[in-house]
């Protein structure tokens, strides 16, 4: 839905490379399967661990690193998955374009916020907002 469709000899150009986004989405979903199992075991570990227990868990760079990877892959996947849903159900080009822009901004912000918080937790930074340095 981005811009006017272009054609080559009566065949839509995107028919030649349209599977790229689909493949990316599937690879992200495949990566989320083991990461999801890791999230499941982490939820089990961290339930009832309390503030100190959770902070100690984030102190391990393996945990923090996997959490960052999970957040980035999930929000990347969510962007593509919601894009497909918008393409399927929203047929007004203007509305569709606005929703895609909102979707991209929201997913980007959530991914950035996740990384920001996880890095602070891994470094054991002082609680916000005092820890921001002002």
């Amino acid at each position, binding site marked *: 839905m981005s811009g006017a*469709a272009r*054609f080559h000899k*009566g*065949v*839509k150009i995107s028919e030649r490379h349209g599977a790229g986004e689909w493949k990316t989405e*599937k690879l992200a*979903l*495949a990566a*989320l*399967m083991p990461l*999801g*199992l890791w*999230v*499941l075991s982490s*939820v*089990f570990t961290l*339930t*009832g*661990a*309390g*503030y100190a227990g*959770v*902070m100690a868990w*984030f102190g391990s760079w393996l945990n923090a690193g996997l959490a960052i990877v999970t*957040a980035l892959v*999930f*929000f990347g996947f*969510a962007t593509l*998955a*919601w894009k497909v*849903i918008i393409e399927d159900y929203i047929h007004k080009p203007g509305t569709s374009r606005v929703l895609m822009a909102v979707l991209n901004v929201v997913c980007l912000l*959530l991914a950035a*916020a*996740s990384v920001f*918080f*996880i890095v*602070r*937790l891994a470094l054991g*930074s002082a*609680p*916000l*907002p005092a820890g921001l340095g002002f």
Partner: protein
Amino acid sequence: MTSVSNNPADTDKTGDLSAQVVMQPNGRPRPLSPHLQTWRWHVTMTASILFRITIGAASVAAIILVGWLAALAFGPDAYAGVLAFAASPFGLFIGFGLTVVLFSFLLNGARHLINDLGQGLTLKPANLMSNIAVWGPIPLAVLFWVLLFATGRVSL
């Protein structure tokens, strides 16, 4: 697209094919796909629709998790508030729902990936995988919470 009727009787009288055929941009006709109400219900349809719903629910779950990270980053006092809410009946209900969503994402995602590889598309495996993806999350989430209670991680 002119008409969207899927009823063949609509076309018999006039010979008009617009109800059964849609013209592609390249000028070739393509049969118009019948929509949901035309098909007899099948569990594979439920699994497919549930995966979209699961992705929506997982997005909400991800936002809740970012809120959880934020509470941690804002220090022990903010986190104590989150824990107090999580221990309330509504908090436990939300927590159970989140685990259902996670199991649903794993089972239905695995089903979708297997089908995307061109595997398990015949009737028996497609039905089996769809049934597992649709019904599996509930008993698995119950089992997960039984283990949480049994190991003393959660108590009422």
